[in-house]
């Protein structure tokens, strides 16, 4: 199966970027990215992520934002990025595999929540203050799909075009895009992501709960 068939969401990101004049900095793949299911720093590597890195050695939307961090024959950003997360983040966040970054925010798969087919869900990590994560997709293809919908919504805004400042923040302000992912909503409602979403003595936990409620309400519909 080729990448386009495996990752239609990724194709959609590229199509949206092209349609709206968003430049995408892409590099050809190298040979360093892990294969599907191979162990990466002790964790199984997601097969769809492996397919994405087999297609691109880097996919950047701006100098501060990579959907796929650089991983080619010259630079193994996957290793350095995940070495950093092990160095700086609490233990439970060290079990995630970071594959993209947006400023200091990170996109990561969650190996321990892989489906029966081995597909890992994706979380968005905010390490700026007290670190926490929000679940954003039930698998890597779905992540690209959801992100393409977000990009489509903000691409023509003047502040996004000129300064990369969208009017709505991903994923905080766009629960409607996430609620379309039924498998994700099920995983959220069963508390699978709780260890990364809620911290001890977390002052912002209430905000997170409200956001989760919004996602679930939108899923259920009016």
């Amino acid at each position, binding site marked *: 199966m080729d990448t386009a068939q495996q990752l239609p969401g990724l194709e959609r990101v590229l199509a949206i970027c092209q349609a709206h004049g968003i430049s995408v*900095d892409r590099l050809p793949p190298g040979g360093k990215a892990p294969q599907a299911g191979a162990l990466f720093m002790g964790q199984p590597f997601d097969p769809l992520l492996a397919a994405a890195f087999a297609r691109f050695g*880097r996919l*950047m939307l701006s*100098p*501060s934002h*990579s959907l796929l*961090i*650089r991983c080619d024959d010259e*630079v193994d*950003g996957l290793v*350095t*990025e995940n070495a*950093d997360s092990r160095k*700086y983040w609490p233990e439970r966040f060290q079990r995630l595999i970071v594959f993209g*970054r947006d*400023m*200091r925010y990170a996109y990561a798969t969650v190996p321990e929540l892989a489906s029966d087919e081995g597909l890992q869900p994706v979380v968005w990590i*905010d390490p*700026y*203050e*007290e670190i926490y994560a929000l679940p954003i997709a039930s698998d890597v293809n779905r992540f690209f799909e959801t992100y393409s919908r977000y990009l489509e919504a903000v691409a023509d*805004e*003047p*502040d996004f075009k*000129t*300064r*990369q*400042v*969208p*009017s*709505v*923040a991903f994923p*905080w*302000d766009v629960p409607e895009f996430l609620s379309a992912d039924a498998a994700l909503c099920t995983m959220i409602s069963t508390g699978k992501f709780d260890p990364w979403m809620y911290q001890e003595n977390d002052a*912002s936990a209430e*905000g997170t709960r409200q956001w989760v409620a919004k996602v679930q309400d939108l899923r259920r519909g009016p």
Partner: protein
Amino acid sequence: MRMNPGWRALTWGLVALLLVNGCATVPLEGTGGSGRWVEQRGPRPGSSEWGDLEEARRAEVESALAGMWGVASEVREVGAALEFTFWVEGGAFTLLSLRRPEWGHEPGSVLSRESFADELGELLSTYAGEAAGAMRLTLRREERRWRADFQVETGAEFPLEAKTWPVRQAGVRAEVLERLVATGREVARRVWVPAGAQVRWQVEVELEDERVRGLETHPPGALPGGKAVKAAPETVGTWVNVLAPFTYGLGPRKVRMEWEGTHIAGTGLSRWRIVAAEVVRPPPPAPENAEVALEYRAMHEQIQRQWREQTRETFQYAGLWSAEQVAVFMVAGWAARGVTLGLEAASPMIYRMLARGGTFAVGWFRSLLVRAAPAEKQVLSRLMAKVETQGLEALTATERAELQSLFGRMEGLTTAPLERGAKDRLRRDAQTRFYEEFHPKLSSLLRESNGHAYDIHHCIPLELAHKFPLRDINSAENLAAAAKPVHEGVGRVWARLRKMSDEPDARVVEEVERLVRRHFGRWFNRAYDYAGNSDEALAAAERAALEELEVLLRSR
């Protein structure tokens, strides 16, 4: 040529519009530097934008011709001269002044507007594509024609009321014309001539964009005695024809006119002729506000152009505003109009910033807008478009109340902790501002091995920004690029402060900020040496900073 319903040609009794072939020169690629509207690129030949531009240029020539014909059509005296000075730029004509230096003698033949257009149309079209500058067009009346001569002054200073981009609509808006006529009637009611005499009056009309906002009439210093002879009714048309072409300019200004009235022998009425008319500009902005004022001027021209090309009913501002533009509008546009809206009491912080003006105020408002909910910005943009096109007086009581309540909410934001979405937007804004505005040279230098730009650190952290409502949290002073290890180290120092049971006050926050700068500042805005022994030095700096912080917190 488009002529929207609700428009009338500039034909007060005399003038009709003319179709003239426009020239097809390459449009100017942004004139820049003078506060003119700068388009990134001109449209390509054959594109719809190119067609629009050509149409706009034809409309400009047509408007200029109609404006001149409105004055010239009343002059039949052979030997008379009329002098029109236009600012011509990018195909747009803006009338700056007109004079009648020669009165002439015996009346010549009646001339048609077609012959007038034949004489001048090609000249104007050709000149429309030339370099920007002042063009003085002298028309001399001969027996059967007007002979035209022109002089160009390319070194002239750019007049702020001048258009820099052609407007695709000829003529005067119906409601503008109505107001001009009402003004003409008022002038006719006020001026008079002593019986048997000839006198000159000065008339000043205050304009904002195309709208008449005020009228002053000044009699001559000494009026000879005698019965007052009022202006003949047809004089109203003469006033309007002189004033109408000045309404194509932009912004606040006055048109100062000198009129000569003569008692028409054997009647109880007087006849009036224009001697001279010129634009009087408001004083230039203070130097510290000049940059913002020019930016505002360019933005104002853009929205005025769209307004003039549409009817009131169809007008919808096609462009959306960026936070930067809204901020410029608020600081320069409203301050220029002296807008207070009772903000002083209800929104003192916003009021202070409006009063302060300049680039700092723009930055402050921009950061405030970035943190405001998108819906708030949309409301502001909508009201702003209305004020920009129809004046502040056009806001209804409901809209004024809406604006005041919006400012009230924005004022509240300045002292409220930031929400997550707002923090996200401010971080992105900081990243762009730092690398594109403040330190463009650092953009390619401060990169991690994977190509990522160093993240931007807020020296006063976003989570404590509400302690400093009058600071611009995304100002150059508050932003520093920091490699990941540096940012992590700094983050741990601030995390310690976060663990305090009560929130620190502004004084403590400032002390911690200074402490952090002291210990980590040498790594700010610099490439981090991953290969050397920076990690050790960084770890030592972090330990020292944390120790100092403990002392500081114990001493509270």
